[in-house]
């Protein structure tokens, strides 16, 4: 466990952006107003799958007030190529096809054309005057249907990749891969108990409160200026440049405050379209999505079908595990089944494993990341089966997990061997928590547990520091701040410099003002950007020591820095006093840090939940909920707890009510926050948190990202709790009242 003494890390200073946020002064994307600003509206496909026969924009162009109309025909035509977005490679044609459909529409809500006008109402009316002739095609909405031989094909050019090799087969299966470890048949032969089930999870949306918004000015000098709400300014820059076929240096992206993303604000939707409208009209153009646009036109996270089979010996050892996982990619390949397959058995040390993954396209919006993408679906299956195995073996569910927990040296089926991890410590913290041993009385009540893993991401981050004469330091970073990361990054610089967190002013900069920084995703900001800040602070320290040495006419190597005081021999000077003397010792001091960690050291989490089920209505009330997570080192514990509570709340929503309710012809029927039933404050108990600290050996402060692993266990936790309350196991998400009631009725006969 983390034992090192720190002055700043582990404290709970007020966040730097707090005052602006609580007083409503913070500037979000939709707050941008430029002289001559036009409003944009997007025409979206009413069909889930159709050929575009003809688009006639003349009636829209003729409407007074309309300044520009664009379709896919306005996009640059260039060779298709592979684009690296930091979180995976994507063909340019898919990125381009998703921002404006060409040839075919692949889901209801697919953008087809866009209009810019002096007012939003005119733009919307003009959009409705665009005549699009469609030839509707049969649509396919689920993985199992899409995998059938006779399924309608979404992409004529999509050939299945099988075990890493391109086949000649055109199908909706973009990829089939396999991870193998040991010998599963031998493993199952050794098992005394085998449990096997099929699980399904619905398509769900991240549900960030702020809709996507982008304002773009295609300037007369050819520069394209973008203001938007994004998780990654550099991704927006690079993707926009690719789609528009201009060099990245032509695009400057200014990220504004962001009202939630959870992975859903990594893809680019509006920026290239607003850019085209701006180019045509010569004026800045803003496009802001409605909630319906967000549900129908941006990436939810995949629905899935997962079959898990696990076998254990009487002594409680899991000896074999097998998973078959098919995830819905939506309209374009990239279903997050890769990460799902890496995580499916990641919490356990199992000698014999086979995992088959299928990335399947269907006529739904192209899916995007959502907090530990792919892992929650997988854990729902695995942790339900593990619970059943424990019961069959007559073992306490946490003892059983502890006995099989992954540790340093455990090899995952997809290859890597774990460095020091905190799986065991998380399970022990669950076991020792008073919640686990508290009596649970009353009818229809049950307690469930589950654990989960997310590997987190490294990737590039940059940071610069400049020292002010008053002893404060300005910090410039490129990571948009979603979860309080300005503060957790600033604190790491402050710790190195020996000054207070409030003495560092963090600023999230535009893409011209800071070095390349990958997305705010993969729980990487406190880890990687924090590391860059650590490096930048070391750079400052090195220079400051030279300045002290100069003043003291001594060797810089003899100068030390301890708790903000420079010393050499019997001379000393505070950071603040030295900062005031930079002018006379050589001028300003700036420090820089740039890192590109290849791995991140994963995070484990676990939940304990008590539920009460109304057997007559099937409604599940969560009475008590405890979340445990390994943070490596909790830089700012309050924000770690906030992440754990947020992930738990989203996981509870995913478990109990959230889903894309599709009509047979592929229309989402609940595209509003009224009917998409995310939990409200009244649906959640107080979520208790326990931070475990098993330092990450590769990070200077031992940090592990904490943004994601916490969403992984909740659905399985609640499924297990519902089982212990009612005696029925639900294997399909959401476990909404009708589903729970029907399961109870069928048990009762």
């Amino acid at each position, binding site marked *: 466990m983390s034992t090192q003494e720190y002055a700043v890390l582990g404290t709970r200073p007020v966040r730097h952006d707090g005052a602006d946020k609580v007083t409503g002064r913070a500037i979000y994307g939709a707050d941008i107003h430029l002289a001559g600003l036009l409003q944009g509206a997007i025409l979206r496909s009413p069909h889930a799958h159709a050929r575009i026969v003809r688009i006639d924009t003349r009636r829209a162009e003729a409407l007074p007030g309309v300044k520009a109309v664009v379709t896919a025909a306005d996009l640059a035509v260039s060779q298709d190529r592979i684009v690296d977005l930091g979180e995976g490679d994507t063909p340019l044609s898919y990125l381009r096809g998703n921002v404006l459909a060409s040839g075919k529409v692949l889901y209801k809500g697919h953008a087809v054309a866009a209009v810019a006008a002096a007012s939003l109402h005119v733009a919307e009316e003009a959009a409705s005057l665009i005549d699009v002739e469609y030839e509707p095609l049969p649509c396919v909405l689920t993985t199992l249907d899409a995998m059938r031989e006779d399924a309608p094909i979404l992409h004529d050019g999509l050939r299945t990749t099988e075990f890493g090799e391109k086949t000649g087969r055109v199908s909706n299966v973009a990829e089939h891969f396999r991870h193998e470890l040991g010998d599963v048949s031998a493993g199952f032969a050794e098992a005394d108990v085998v449990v096997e089930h099929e699980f399904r999870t619905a398509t769900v949306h991240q549900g960030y409160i702020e809709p996507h918004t982008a304002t773009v000015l295609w300037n007369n000098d050819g520069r394209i200026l973008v203001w938007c709400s994004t998780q990654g300014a550099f991704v927006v820059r690079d993707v926009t440049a690719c789609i528009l076929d201009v060099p990245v240096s032509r695009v400057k992206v200014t990220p504004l405050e962001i009202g939630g993303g959870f992975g859903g604000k990594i893809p680019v939707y509006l920026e290239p379209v607003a850019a085209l409208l701006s180019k045509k009209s010569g004026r800045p153009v803003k496009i802001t999505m409605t909630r319906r646009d967000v549900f129908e036109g941006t990436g939810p996270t995949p629905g899935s079908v997962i079959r898990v089979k696990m076998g254990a010996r009487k002594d409680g050892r899991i000896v074999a595990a097998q998973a078959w996982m098919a995830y819905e990619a939506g309209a374009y390949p990239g279903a997050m089944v890769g990460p799902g397959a890496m995580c499916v058995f990641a919490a356990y040390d199992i000698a014999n494993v086979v995992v088959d993954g299928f990335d399947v396209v269907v006529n739904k919006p192209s899916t995007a990341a959502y907090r530990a993408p792919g892992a929650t679906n997988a854990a729902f299956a695995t942790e339900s089966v593990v619970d059943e195995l424990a019961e069959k073996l007559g073992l306490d569910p946490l003892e059983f997990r502890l006995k099989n927990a992954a540790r340093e040296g455990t090899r995952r089926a997809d290859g890597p061997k774990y460095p020091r991890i905190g799986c065991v410590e998380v399970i022990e913290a669950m076991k020792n928590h008073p919640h686990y041993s508290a009596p649970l009385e009353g009818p229809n009540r049950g307690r469930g547990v589950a654990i989960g893993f997310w590997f987190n991401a490294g990737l590039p981050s940059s940071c610069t520091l400049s020292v002010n004469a008053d002893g404060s330091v300005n910090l410039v970073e490129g990571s948009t701040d979603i979860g309080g990361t300005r503060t957790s990054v600033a604190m790491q610089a402050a710790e190195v410099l020996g000054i207070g967190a409030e003495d560092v002013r963090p600023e999230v900069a535009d893409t011209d003002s800071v070095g390349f920084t990958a997305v705010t995703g993969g729980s990487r900001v406190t880890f990687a950007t924090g590391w860059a800040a650590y490096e930048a602070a070391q750079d400052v320290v090195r220079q400051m020591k030279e300045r002290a040495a100069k003043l003291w006419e001594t060797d810089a190597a003899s100068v030390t820095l301890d708790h903000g005081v420079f010393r050499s021999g019997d001379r000393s000077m505070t950071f603040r006093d030295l900062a005031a003397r930079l002018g006379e010792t050589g001028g300003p001091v700036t420090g820089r840090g740039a890192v590109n960690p290849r791995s991140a050291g994963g995070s484990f989490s676990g939940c304990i939940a008590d539920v009460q089920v109304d057997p007559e209505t099937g409604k599940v009330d969560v009475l008590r909920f405890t979340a445990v997570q390994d943070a490596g080192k909790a830089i700012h514990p309050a924000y770690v707890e906030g992440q754990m509570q947020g992930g738990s709340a989203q996981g509870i929503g995913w478990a109990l009510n959230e889903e894309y309710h599709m009509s047979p012809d592929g229309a989402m029927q609940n595209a509003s926050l009224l009917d998409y039933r995310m939990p409200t404050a*009244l649906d959640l108990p107080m979520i208790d948190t326990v931070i475990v600290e098993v330092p990450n050996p590769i990070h200077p402060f031992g940090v592990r990202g904490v943004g994601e692993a916490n969403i992984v266990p909740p659905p399985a936790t609640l499924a297990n709790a519902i089982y212990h309350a009612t005696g029925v196991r639900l294997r399909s998400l959401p476990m909404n009242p009708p589903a729970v009631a029907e399961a109870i009725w069928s048990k009762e006969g």
Partner: protein
Amino acid sequence: MKWFDYSAPESVSGAISALAAHPRARILAGGTDLLVQMRAGRKETDFIVDVKRIPELNEIRYDSDGLTVGASAPCYRLYAHADVAARYPSLARLAALIGGTQIQGRASIGGNLCNAAPSADAVPLLIALGARCRIAGQAGEREVVVEEFCTAPGVNVLGPGEFLVSLLIPPPAPGSGAHYERFIPRNEMDIAVAGAGASVVLEDGHFRSARIALASVAPTPLFVREAGDALAGKPVNEESINEAANLARDAARPISDMRAPAEYRRRLCAVLTRRALTRAIEEARGNR
């Protein structure tokens, strides 16, 4: 949403002429249904008649004829009203059930009824309480009982140029009680998957009379006369309650949609009717 014109007449006659002059006009009370529907493109109009400034549509008054609730009086005024709280506690609870605090500051019972949603929470209780609608139009005034007001999803009996002025609820009989029970998957901010309103009058451990109505299980709010009638004269016990609950379930004609499957809704009708009756009985016992 396209442009529209707006007027806010201050009398019933002013509203009548505004509506006569604008055949495509729509009436605005709290706007918590109308504005949402217009924004979503589900309703269009070129003229809005805001009725909130008309005194008759804003009053809440109790006298020997019972309770008069102006059609556009917002929910918060209902539950804050001393007579409503004392004599119609079920109505006060209902007003506090619709939406959250912000919505209750605007949303009206009249708007809830005129919107004619099968799921409207106020309607089953109004039916159970035996409420009548006072309607005004160019041809004069008329009265319609609430159970006959809604005719199809989103459609009501109002003819061109007609509007709802107020609702009239008879004075509560001694030994009476009422309650509306809805089921929503979340604890707030949701549309009834099913709902049941019940009123009872008790006498010597027996039901003198009862009225039961359901939400969200038919194209309109559904008055199940036979379920209430079956209780008349029966002893107040579990068996009678279950019988009425089963009759309500059998009368339901729900559909399957994104909010719930039909069979689930049907079963809920029995559960909710039983729960509504049980609560109404408790209230009636306190009202002797």
